[in-house]
């Protein structure tokens, strides 16, 4: 669980007026034309990540892919040209730990093993946080279930295609994941419902995971037996009962699903590695992993990535032994490291979060930017498609007005599959019209069903206390009771 809100102020300067609404369908239609066209970005400083920087370089985008990149690139005469003189282009940011774009609670916190819950069922392309993160250069998110359970729900990698249809968000062919978690949250140490839930200790957490995989193996075996007997021609066999809780764990055992494990304390991290070895499954990443610097060698030996924060700690007991050198130290020991947000605000300046690893741990510029581009792509198994600017990769790009490692860098455009999903100039140009529309609709809504508008004093609503405001749902059309942050929002 992050200390949400403490750091919220500093990001608010960025484009607070962005809460405009696209409908799925409207956006989808807008996008279709540009995607098939050819675009040339020229005169830019290109940060390729894999092949250094190219000054005054060009990128040719065709059919949503990077068709060419270099100091001189030939483009067809009718290509749409983006003159990026003085600008910096880098691969779009990949956030390996996010909870945006989720309809409803991110935590099925009732069960110790809530593997049946699936983020894919509740993806919300209309979440305005998607747009706000586009304005921070993010193009891909690993949307995770919360951390209230030793074994949590199924997770999914999405492209931040704001306003697309829900089924168009998932990154094609990216392996799905499942959230695991260790430590205080899964023991409900700092929150919980009125009824206590097993496990209450770290021993219990380990037992919960072992029990789940023991059951998953039995389930796997039951299907194997059934299929074998059926193939042998046996009639009238009762099939095993499908179990939506155990299915994803069988996928983990079969290498078809990644484990992303929320973790803090080193001995718990070692525990999961032992259990994984015993049951024959792999852990793909440790998330948060604030004590990763203590077990970096073990992580590297097991080929497990570390996805951490830059300098965010001490928000609970298990986050006390964190140091800002964590990312650099793990990197030095050969761990693939990413820096993630776990937070819709933090995600808007992940470039700056990456830059901090230059101050703390002396990573070089490229190593720092890898933390939010190619490294998370590797961790998510999508580095053949994204994470660097190379010919043939997806045209997922972000254009800054300054070096992205500078605090002065502001995102100008964010491009996904060759299509511009955020354009700062267009956004600014749109604001007045949206404000006008809002005011007109507001007046109309206020006068709905009234013969004549009442005097202003009478219609003015009572001033509400801040905590009452916070209960307000951010979505339209939701039935009463909607809340995205039930029971402390264990993340």
């Amino acid at each position: 669980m992050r200390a949400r809100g403490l750091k919220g102020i500093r990001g608010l300067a960025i484009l607070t007026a962005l809460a405009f609404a696209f409908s799925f369908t409207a956006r989808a239609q807008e996008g279709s034309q540009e995607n098939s066209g050819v675009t040339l970005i020229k005169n830019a400083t290109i940060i390729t990540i894999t092949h250094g920087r190219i000054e005054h370089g060009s990128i040719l985008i065709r059919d949503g892919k990077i068709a060419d990149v270099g100091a001189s690139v030939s483009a067809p005469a009718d290509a749409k040209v983006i003159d990026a003189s003085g600008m910096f282009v880098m691969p779009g940011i990949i956030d390996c730990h996010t909870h945006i774009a989720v309809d409803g609670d991110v935590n099925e916190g009732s069960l110790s093993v809530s593997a049946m819950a699936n983020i894919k069922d509740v993806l919300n392309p209309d979440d305005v946080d998607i747009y706000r993160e586009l304005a921070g250069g993010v193009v891909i998110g690993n949307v995770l279930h919360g951390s209230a359970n030793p074994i949590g729900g199924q997770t999914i990698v999405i492209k931040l295609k704001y306003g697309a249809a829900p089924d168009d968000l998932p990154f094609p062919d990216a392996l799905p994941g499942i959230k695991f978690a260790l430590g205080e949250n899964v023991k409900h140490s700092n929150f919980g419902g009125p009824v206590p839930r097993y496990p209450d200790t770290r021993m219990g957490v380990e037992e919960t995971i072992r029990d789940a995989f023991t059951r998953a193996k039995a389930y796997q075996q039951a299907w194997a037996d059934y299929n074998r007997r059926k193939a042998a021609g046996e009639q009238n066999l009762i099939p095993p009962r499908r179990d939506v809780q155990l299915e994803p764990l069988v996928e983990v055992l079969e290498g078809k699903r990644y484990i992303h494990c929320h973790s803090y304390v080193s001995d718990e991290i070692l525990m999961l590695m032992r259990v994984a070895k015993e049951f024959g499954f792999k852990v793909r990443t440790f998330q948060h992993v604030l004590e990763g610097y203590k077990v970096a060698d073990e992580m590297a030996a097991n080929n497990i990535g570390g996805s951490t924060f830059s300098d965010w700690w001490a928000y609970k007991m298990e986050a006390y032994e964190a140091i800002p050198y964590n990312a650099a130290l793990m990197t030095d020991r050969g761990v693939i490291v990413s820096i993630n947000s776990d937070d819709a605000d933090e995600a808007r300046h992940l470039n700056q979060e990456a830059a901090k690893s230059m101050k703390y741990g002396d990573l070089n510029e490229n190593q720092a930017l890898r933390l939010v581009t190619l490294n998370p792509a590797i961790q998510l198994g999508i580095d053949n498609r994204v994470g660097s600017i190379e010919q043939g990769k997806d045209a997922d790009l972000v254009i800054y007005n300054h070096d992205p490692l500078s605090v002065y860098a502001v995102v100008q455009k964010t491009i996904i599959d060759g299509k511009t999903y955020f354009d700062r100039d267009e956004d600014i140009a749109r604001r007045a019209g949206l404000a006008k529309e809002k005011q007109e609709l507001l007046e109309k809504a206020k006068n709905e069903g009234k013969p004549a508008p009442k005097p202003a004093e009478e219609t003015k609503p009572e001033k509400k206390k801040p905590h009452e405001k916070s209960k307000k749902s951010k979505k339209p059309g939701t039935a009463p009771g909607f809340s995205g942050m039930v029971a402390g929002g264990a993340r």
Partner: protein
Amino acid sequence: MNPRRKIRSLALSVAMFAAAAIAALGVFLISPRVAFAQGPPQTGLSASAGLSHAGEPRFFAIKGARIVPVSGPVIEKGTVVLANGIITAVGADAQIPAEVEVIDGTGLTVYPGLIDAGTTVGLGEAENAAPTGGRRGGGPRGPAPTRISTGPQDRPLTTPWVVAADELNLADARIVSWREAGFTTGLVQPEEGILPGQGSVIDFANEPAGEMVVKPRATLPIAFVTEPSFSSFPNSLMGSIAYVRQVFSDARWYQDAAAAYAAHREGQEHPAYDRTDVVLGEALKSNEPILLPANDQLAIYRAIRLANEWQIHAAMYGAQNGYEMASEIAASKMPVFVNLNWPHMEKGADEEQITLRELRLWDRAPSSPAALAKAGVTFAFYSGGIKDPKEILKDVKKAIDAGLSPDDALKALTVNPAEMLGVDDRLGSIAQGKIANLVVTDGDLFNEKTKIKDVFVDGHRYRIHEEASPGPPGGAHKPPMQSGNEGVGR
């Protein structure tokens, strides 16, 4: 012009007089509402109970009225004949049998009885419950649930065996108020839970409960609601969806397993009985429409996807964002129950917290029916928590003002829900052989000034707006009628 001025055959008038006299006595001695609250009559010995059911003649002809059959062209001047609860003739020159009570329909318009395709009317105290569709996401932090669910196997918030027709509470005053607003029929659905039960098609007649039932198992509504806290599964929307996925799988498994076990018991465990599995299995086999929540764009997408994944005979309900999703809905071929309870700005709302998205929804939601009609979607209207039934037609009018043709509006209140609920052989239009459910008005149904004069349910006549007219010439003064159903002599 006055529908009360009736032409009667001499023989019938004697019978009517006798019936009215006894009825007046009944009204005086005991309120019909109280009488019915005590349950259906046992023997017909009490005055009110006996008359309400058996003693009333149900032979009427409405003559010379404008008839809107919905199933066919409007008859500008025609006759509808009702006998024993059935429409026996309709047409410009329909024969009027000698024994019927003839009602002068001059200046009146006759419509099929209106259907509210989603309500709790008749289920009593659910009056203040949230509209169907339920909570989304983690609900409010509430007290500990009385029954802790530790997973799908505990069947949380699941009572599909509850059939609305079995739960009717005749004391529910809304039966009368809905009827007086022209709604002769409702799809009455239980609404507490993920699988709260089965909806029934109910005629809002003043009859013993069993006789009001047109179709007991008409729908199986689903709402992806949640438990209020981490104490009980499911507390999240995705958990609720995962649960229903498991339950449908279980119901199908149980059918297969039971068949396999019956064929070959040796070496096999008998599949454990589970009433949820059994009831859902029956619903799946009978192709009972399964209603999925589609309260907004996202939910509409989800309903389409889940209906495909689960291979169920599904319809969606809500659809107030239909104006944005009409082509997707049309492509899905799913019928739609449209909630008429249009979203709007709440009184005292904090304007700073209102988003443009909400404002657009409030502004455009009533245009959804027009968009659905244009896209060729079959849809029906439901009252979705509207408290005052007189508001329902006003909300239909908003949809008409936003582009829906009055013809399509009328269909969404009559023949469409009848088809969607599989009762179009009996309800939804004025045609020979249909149940005698009619609304008689003094003008166009969707005109705000129009008054409903008579409502016929199951062939019973309920006279509306009686209090506004003068007393019968030369007759004894009667107290003003309160619920409009006493006029038929009960």
